[in-house]
């Protein structure tokens, strides 16, 4: 239920910002010529992974990615990372461990019609991870009948597919370096788990469940055509002074 409320809130914010952008554009009645078809490429790294590792013992992920830029609006991209969880139960001695790669492919769309270096992004991604996980309960005991034992599972196979809906923004820090963040609503499409139970954490997805939220803080490096220019204005783009 809280997930629904939050997603509704995010959708409302997105719609408001979209309508404001549209209204603003209509008001000024500026005709902004399209940017070149191919505006360059970029590579990026997620800075939130090390932050998560520092503040949370639940899980973390180290992630890098690359994207292309078409017309300064369309950004097909791929993201690769390694997700890790080394978790001990808060009120028992159970342990869970996994460390595995994951990838996502998708596209971002820049809603900002001006080519001024600031971007308001919305996007969609498909994510996949195949991984192995371990679970151990060293004090697994029958509460009524006699007997107890060490319940240990090693190398259980897991797979998961999911979709991510993202909203975010980014700006130019200096020259070819940019900083951006995005928030993500993740919906699990399908998972395969062992007969003994589902994994606590899915690399790249987060805490296992039908849906979850996440986010990244990306340090972005423009490469190729855009970085050579060292600015974000395009030859045939018209930018009027406010």
């Amino acid at each position, binding site marked *: 239920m809280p997930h629904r409320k939050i997603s509704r809130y995010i959708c409302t914010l997105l719609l408001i910002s979209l309508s404001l952008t549209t209204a603003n554009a209509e008001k000024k009645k500026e005709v902004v010529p399209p940017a070149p078809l191919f505006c360059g490429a970029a590579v990026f790294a997620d800075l939130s992974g090390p932050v998560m590792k520092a503040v949370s013992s639940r899980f973390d992920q180290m992630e890098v990615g690359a994207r292309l830029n078409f017309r300064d609006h369309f950004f097909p991209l791929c993201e690769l990372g390694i997700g890790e969880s080394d978790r001990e*139960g808060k009120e028992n001695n159970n342990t869970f461990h996994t460390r595995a790669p994951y990838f996502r492919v998708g596209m971002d769309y820049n809603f900002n019609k001006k080519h001024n270096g600031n971007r308001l992004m919305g996007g969609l991604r498909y994510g996949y991870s195949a991984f192995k996980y371990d679970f151990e309960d060293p004090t697994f005991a*029958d509460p009524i009948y006699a*007997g107890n034992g060490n319940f240990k599972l090693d190398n259980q196979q897991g797979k998961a597919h999911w979709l991510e809906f993202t909203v975010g923004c980014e700006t130019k820090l200096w020259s070819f370096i940019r900083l951006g963040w995005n928030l993500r609503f993740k919906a699990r499409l399908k998972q395969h788990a062992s007969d*003994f*139970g589902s994994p606590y954490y899915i690399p790249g997805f987060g805490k296992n469940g039908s849906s979850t939220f996440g986010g990244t803080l990306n340090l972005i490096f423009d490469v190729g055509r855009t970085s050579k220019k060292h600015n974000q204005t395009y030859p045939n783009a018209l930018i009027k002074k406010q």
Partner: protein
Amino acid sequence: MSKNILAILAPLLGITLLASCESIDCTVDNVVTLGIGFYDAESGSAKTISDTLTVTANGTDSILYNQGSRVSSIKLPLSYWQEADTLNLTFYDAENDASHVVTLSVKKTNTPHHESPDCPTTMFHEIKEIAFTSATQYVDSITLTDPKVNYASQENIKIYLHPTSD
């Protein structure tokens, strides 16, 4: 430029807080029990027994169900490690001061089940075979309706009581 950087960095605090939030959400109803329903052998409808019911089992000193009266269904824990459980159902007829003991044998497989490491590990079962013995004509027959004993199971075994059991 500095405004842009501030605006861009502000959500970092949110992401950090989001990452540091932690909640334990285990299944609320995380007790795995065998569901048994009582039915009238003639009509086939659910039956509320008027006698007092107590259930014990071989392999434990615990009383699994203690002196229940006017019940139409019960839930009993099964053993984690045994391949077969023997449940002793004692129906006490206070009016006639008579006891009817029905021994229910349940052969099963046991599969450990885990969720989050924060949650207790439990044991799921799959019933392979059931049988009963009774010295008196109290139980007419039994049927296995759902062999899977897990969080979701409601009723696994139907016990049809003989019409003279009242």
